[in-house]
């Protein structure tokens, strides 16, 4: 269990939100449409960031299964906006050397004739730097 307060501070800077405003009600995880696909659930992103355990989150596939639907962000009673924490942690990962999740070479086999380019652009925006 590695504690990295610098990473914690980076995440807080990126989100602009103090994770301590979370009252641990779990509404984010209750509303999350991707809950079963995620190893770490939205509320855990908040508490692990708060504890400085960002590395565990960065190593997790959960980063790429967040649907960015912003339901947690909308419904959080304390304005904590967990989706921002997921994105911030993902950015930390992507900005590392070799941290890109999606390589251009992988794209062609994912394509089909109807796929809107919106999907490809957004995938690059979200999964590589």
């Amino acid at each position, binding site marked *: 269990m590695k504690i990295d307060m610098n990473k914690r501070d980076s995440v807080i*800077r*990126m*989100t*602009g939100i103090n994770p301590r405003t979370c009252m641990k009600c779990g509404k984010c995880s209750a509303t999350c*449409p*991707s809950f079963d*696909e995620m190893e770490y659930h939205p509320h855990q992103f908040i508490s692990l960031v708060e504890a400085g355990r960002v590395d565990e989150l960065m190593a997790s596939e959960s980063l*790429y*299964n967040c*649907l*960015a*639907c*912003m*339901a947690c*962000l*909308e419904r959080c009673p304390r304005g904590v*906006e967990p*989706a*921002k924490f997921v*994105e*911030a942690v993902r*950015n930390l990962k992507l900005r590392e050397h070799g941290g890109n999740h*999606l390589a251009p070479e992988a794209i062609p086999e*994912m394509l*089909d004739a*109807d*796929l*809107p*380019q*919106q*999907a*490809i*652009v*957004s*995938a690059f*925006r*979200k999964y590589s730097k």
Partner: protein
Amino acid sequence: MIFSYYPGCTLRTRAKDLDVYARKCALALGVELVEPKDWQCCGVVYPLAGDEIAHRLSAVRVLQDAQSRSVSVLTVCSACHNVLKQCAYDLKNDADFRNKANAYSEFDIPVTGEVDVVHYLEMLRDTVGFDTIKQKVVNPLTGKKIGAYYGCLLLRPGKKMGFDDPENPAIIEEFIKALGAEPVIYPYRNECCGGYVTLENKPLAQKKSQTVLESAKEMGAECVITACPLCLYNLKKNGGDTLPVYYFTELLAEALGVK
């Protein structure tokens, strides 16, 4: 009424139906759409991390263009709408971002964010009025039961988007009523269809889009309409053959008799 019409990348290729009918209907409704010169992609996803300035600059460019011409930006695609509206909000309310955006781009007139970003549906509601549309309908879709699919991007975050009540929206239902059809309210109309993971996690995208369509079908919908090309693709591709999915502009064109 003149709007700066921002189609966005997908509308010129994969989502032609959304674009073509939107322009035809605007013509029929007396709304003038002027496309900005040399427009580029809006950025597609709004970065939730506050330090991503560059990702928002292409949207800033669109807003600056509209601001300098004193017109509102009209969008049809949900994703473009989400990015542009949130960026306009940031420009207006976040001085740090505004300064950085102006420092990056050498505009003749500095961008202030004092520009309205209007979705086509909002234009129909607030500028044209659903009552007017009702009068102009020539082929009413009487008896058709239609489910509105809002998805995430039109509604959330509610505070910045100010589109409708994010938990119980009514605008597309009003729109459906104006066309003479019967709106079907189903609980998953504002839940995610899983569009963003369609490339990487097909099973998840399938599960989510099927939940949406099955919920609509269960509540009696015969088809579903949306404003988002990615949602449409995902619901069609991954939602099974549960229900047909259309762009809302397509139905509008049909009802107005301009299809």
